[in-house]
């Protein structure tokens, strides 16, 4: 394998070198980061407005609730998504048991399920008036209050829903890390007398920690940004608080200040993630790879492993899809007309364009910061990556304000000097929507590209140069093959995320332009769950293909694998 060869070269030539001219790349990177950070800076700018008495009111009444609920939600999702993701990743990477081949890719499927849709679906099934509790009451001749049933619309319910659809992030990254680990480290630990459990806890898990923390931080950022689920379940978090302050109290300054606090949460998360990755220098302790022989589990233990993998897949995907399908059968004919195909096409094109567009600045920034990162450029990069944890509506407002000002500024200037009105150039176009997606999902692209680039040591460039390669040839023959997997992963995750995205789309889209997510949400928020199911299923179906592609990418990324 090329990467293995490249790795070997890197150990023999340890000289620092880069193909890029530092000043140009760094400058470009700083500019790109600044542009992407504009909406975030716009919101942060509100922090310098004098605070209103609303702020005092919030502090006296609901702020403590917002903070504690948001923290509990994050803790819960960290525990839930973390344990599911790590367990399933470990089992599918190390052992062979019934169904393993199937789980390797199907465990990613819940990624295709928008959180608000799984929330609507579970509520439909398990709420007090839903079919399950109805059945319990009728079968056992009980009345409400005479039996115990977990309340789905609660903090615990929200944690469960978010864990079920967000664990694939942890699974994805943990699995890639487990596969990346040299079997030698594990074998060494076994020869030193560690049992399988000790090897897992003291060797594999610490080695994979940076990847796991990255996966968890993605899941937690999504959790912080979630509005649909918590609002529907009546859990007061920062996001619901921001909207209540803004919509209800009509105080956009206080709302933006709440967003500012939310961003400090995020900053802590990001710093944790960075700090954890800093320890990653022990990652490639050796370059001698061998295929990890999947240890065959004895039948009984094997079935336990099968069950452990089946549960998250069942509750995160099979069950909700089953319910949605049943609803779709009832309403299919009413809901699918020619406009439905337009919706699907819109969603598909938007997601595709956004995925490609988001990759470009991620590449510029990663290369720009590769060897010549200054503290300022590092700060700008972190700032530009915060969009992932900020609710889509807040991002949308952060995009609207500067573009509105820009458009009206250009228009006024043109009118004054040339007597030509240009009107709105960006606002109300697809462009502004794509830009919002870029801001929102930038960190996904950036993290993935950075980790891919991290595999290419500067010494490899040097080695290539001594063999007479020019800059472009190095990119094409060395960087591209090694990074291919990471680039594809970045494209696919952003694609799926945009397909599911709702709030920014709702605020920024042009006239007569809808997506599957908008259709599903409008109907579901009216509690027309059955009517919304067709659009919901379409989102999942369109996402499945890239998700399967993604799992194939990881399967082939294993070092030492033919």
């Amino acid at each position, binding site marked *: 394998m090329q990467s293995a060869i490249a790795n070997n070269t890197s150990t023999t030539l340890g000289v620092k070198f880069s193909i890029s001219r530092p000043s140009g790349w760094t400058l470009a990177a700083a500019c790109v980061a600044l542009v992407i950070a504009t909406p975030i800076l716009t919101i942060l700018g509100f922090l310098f407005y004098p605070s209103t008495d609303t702020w005092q*009111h919030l502090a006296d*009444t609901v702020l403590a609730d917002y903070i504690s609920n948001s923290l509990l939600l994050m803790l819960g999702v960290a525990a839930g998504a973390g344990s599911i993701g790590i367990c399933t990743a470990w089992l599918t990477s190390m052992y062979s048991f019934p169904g393993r081949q199937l789980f390797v890719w199907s465990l990613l499927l819940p990624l295709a399920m928008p959180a608000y849709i799984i929330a609507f679906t579970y*509520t439909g099934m398990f*709420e*007090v*008036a839903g*079919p399950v*509790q109805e059945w319990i009451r009728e079968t056992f001749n009980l009345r*409400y209050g005479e039996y115990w049933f977990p309340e789905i*619309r609660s903090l615990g319910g929200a944690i469960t829903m978010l864990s079920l659809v967000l664990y694939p992030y942890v699974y994805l990254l943990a699995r890639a890390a487990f596969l990346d680990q040299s079997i030698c480290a594990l074998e060494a630990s076994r020869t030193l007398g560690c049992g399988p459990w000790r090897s897992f806890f003291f060797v594999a898990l610490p080695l994979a920690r940076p990847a796991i923390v990255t996966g968890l931080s993605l899941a937690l950022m999504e959790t912080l940004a979630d509005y649909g689920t918590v609002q*529907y*379940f*009546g859990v007061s978090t920062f996001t*619901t608080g921001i*909207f*209540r302050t*803004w*919509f*209800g*109290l*009509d105080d*956009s300054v206080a709302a933006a200040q709440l967003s500012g606090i939310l961003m400090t949460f995020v900053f802590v998360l990001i710093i944790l993630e960075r700090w954890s990755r800093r320890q990653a220098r022990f990652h490639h302790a050796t370059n001698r790879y061998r295929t990890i022989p999947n240890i065959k589990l004895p039948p009984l233990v094997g079935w336990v492993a099968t069950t452990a993998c089946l549960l998250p897949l069942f509750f995160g995907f099979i069950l909700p899809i089953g319910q949605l399908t049943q609803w779709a059968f009832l309403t299919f004919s009413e809901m699918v007309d020619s406009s439905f195909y*337009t919706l699907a*096409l*819109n969603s598909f*094109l*938007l997601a*595709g*364009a956004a995925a490609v*567009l988001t990759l470009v600045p991620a590449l510029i920034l990663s290369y720009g910061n590769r060897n010549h990162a200054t503290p300022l450029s590092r700060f700008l990069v972190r700032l530009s990556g915060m969009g992932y944890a900020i609710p889509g509506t807040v991002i*949308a*407002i952060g995009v*609207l*304000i500067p*573009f*509105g*000002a820009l458009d*009206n500024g250009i*228009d006024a200037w043109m009118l004054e000097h040339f007597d030509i009105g240009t009107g*709105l150039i960006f*606002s*109300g*176009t*697809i462009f502004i929507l*794509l830009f919002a997606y870029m801001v929102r999902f930038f960190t996904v692209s950036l993290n993935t590209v950075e980790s891919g680039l991290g595999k290419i040591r500067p010494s490899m460039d040097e080695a290539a140069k001594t063999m007479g390669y020019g800059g472009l040839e190095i990119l094409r023959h060395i960087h591209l093959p090694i990074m291919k997997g990471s680039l594809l992963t970045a494209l696919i995750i952003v694609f799926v995320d945009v397909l599911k995205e709702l709030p920014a789309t*709702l*605020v*920024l*889209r*042009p*006239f*007569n*332009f*809808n997506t599957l997510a908008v259709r599903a949400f*409008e*109907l579901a*928020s*009216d*509690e027309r769950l*059955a009517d919304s199911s067709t659009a919901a299923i379409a989102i999942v179906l369109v996402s499945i293909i890239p998700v399967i592609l993604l799992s194939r990418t990881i399967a082939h990324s294993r070092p030492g694998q033919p």
Partner: protein
Amino acid sequence: MNHWKIPLALIFALTSLSGPALASEEVNLYSARKEALIKPLLDKFSSQTGIKVNLVTGKAKTLLKRLQSEGRNTPADILLTTDAGNLHAAKAAGLLQAVDNKVLASVPQNLRDSDNQWFALSTRSRVIVYSKDRVKASDLSTYEDLTNPKWKKRICIRSSSNIYNQSLLASLIVHNGMSKAEEWAKGVVANMAQPPKGNDRAQVKAVAVGVCDIAIINTYYMGVMQEKDAAQQKAAAQVSVFFPNQESRGAHINISGAGLIKGAKHKENAIKLLEYLVSDDAQKWYAQANHEYPIIAGIPVSKIVNAWGYPFKQDNLNVDELGKHNAEAVKIFDRVGWK
């Protein structure tokens, strides 16, 4: 290698799909009413007049923000909302303009802006529904009576983040004063059977199942439930509608309404659309399709709505007041711990 062409092609494909069509006669609408509940009406208008309606739907507050940041160059001609508060806010932000028009003058005084900057298009009432088995209609009387200890652990009502609850409390602030309104909110919280969750339909289902005995909901939800699938019909069949405060000021009313945007580029067409939305044709559609109350006298309500009792005594408070007192209402909700 033509990879760079892919994004360009995608963007091109997208731009060709979007944007207002270049039809000669058109009007641009920002609507807080969801597509399914406005598009059929717009299509009728287009087929009658030949004017194409370009539509963006979204939450009222974000549409307001979009109007503000687009400024004088906004393409929007009309803002349509499902409550009075946001129209009040749009006017206060200087986003609307007055329309002096005979047809629109037929909208009752208390259901339009004092300067004719916006007009109600339909009304809905926030009423009490009660379990037929466990509550007698004679036990019910007013909104104020909901704080009576006899309702302890018997009331279901949705979150106070919802605009309809905010408007209801705003009306109580106007009628009874701040401190009485706060006492009322506190009393209702004390009588709640469960922390608020779900929308108005969920409250009806909760009454049907026995989580609580009475609930406060908007009328049209009940109407839609009664004609929906079997499960919803079954739930709706177990509850009845009660119009509160019939002996005094009348049941609380909220509106859906619309206003003309300042500097609208298709002003004539926009006024035609507003006229159409209060026409008999459109008023009948609201009444039949979404079980709302028409604002023009003499238009029949739907069969289902009629069966609850019509006409009933409506609170004649100017709906503009609801917008004025909205923020105060939310603060009260925060203080009394109404989630």
